[in-house]
């Protein structure tokens, strides 16, 4: 855990230093584009975590592995957080650049649906008392929602939208200068580490809550008492 935190802090510091200070202002957007260093990595994470959640859900569904169920449900609030960040920072970027906080276009709407899917997963899990049943229900919901992931990714190509197309994740060379690209990739990596840290914290309490009647939890607690 401490070394994970250290890697995260170092990556974030390097990414922010590169992005907020070293990288030059954009020739069209001035300094407002610097929102990119949290907006884009958050949006990537919102998709990545959803896929992890659905995959872990599927593994739990097929092989009944408790750990997979815990990874799936522990991912949901973190993914919801990143989706919320992507939406809010996008809105804060849209206002000065597009002249509006929000438009109901394909990219923005599909990302909003992603937030609702995450909230649906969290709500459904909370509504069912038996957590093993809850995990199965949640996994099915998450798997159905996977259809939204390619829609979000390709929305900027399939429909006319205010949102700009991909500048990094495309097959030919990225159309972003290397001085802006490196901090962006650093931040993307730093958010991956953040996910790992947050996931471990979530999984710990989720496991304890599920196994609170197990002997090993009782032993751990009585040991903690004596200390």
């Amino acid at each position, binding site marked *: 855990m401490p070394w994970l935190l250290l890697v995260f802090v170092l990556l974030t510091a390097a990414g922010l230093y590169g992005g*907020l*200070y070293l990288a030059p*202002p954009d020739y069209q957007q*001035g*300094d*407002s584009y*610097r*929102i990119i260093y*949290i*907006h884009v990595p*958050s949006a990537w994470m919102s998709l990545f975590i959803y896929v992890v959640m659905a995959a872990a859900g599927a593994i739990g569904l097929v092989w009944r592995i408790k750990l997979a169920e815990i990874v799936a449900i522990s991912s949901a*609030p*973190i993914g919801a*957080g*990143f989706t*919320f*960040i992507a939406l*809010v*920072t996008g809105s*804060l*970027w849209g*206002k*000065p650049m597009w002249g509006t906080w929000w438009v109901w276009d394909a990219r923005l709407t599909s990302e909003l649906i992603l937030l609702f899917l995450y909230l649906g997963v969290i709500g459904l899990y909370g509504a069912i008392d038996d957590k093993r049943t809850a995990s199965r229900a949640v996994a099915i919901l998450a798997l159905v929602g996977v259809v939204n992931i390619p829609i979000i990714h390709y929305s900027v190509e399939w429909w006319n939208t205010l949102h700009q197309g991909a500048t990094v994740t495309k097959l030919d060379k990225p159309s972003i200068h290397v001085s802006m690209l490196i901090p962006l990739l650093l931040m993307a990596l730093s958010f991956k580490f*953040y996910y790992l*840290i*947050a996931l471990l*914290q*979530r999984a*710990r*309490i989720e496991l*304890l*809550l599920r196994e*609170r009647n197990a002997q090993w*939890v*009782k032993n751990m*607690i*009585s040991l*903690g*008492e004596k200390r």
Partner: protein
Amino acid sequence: MNWQAFFAMGGYAFYVWTAYGVTLLVLVANIMIPVVQRKQFLRRQALKLTRSAGAAKHHRSRQTENTEEI
């Protein structure tokens, strides 16, 4: 480095720093919530454990009293 210019963000200070502030808030919350939950859980369970241990002891001592009477 010119701090004033840095914080001004070319006139976009409100948008840029609000975006970074919201991000920081959400990221910190998503770490702190499970940590606080775990601490609360451990405190609650420890209390329960000492209570049930106390009750068992009490129960046992009452039983021995009863057998002595007989």
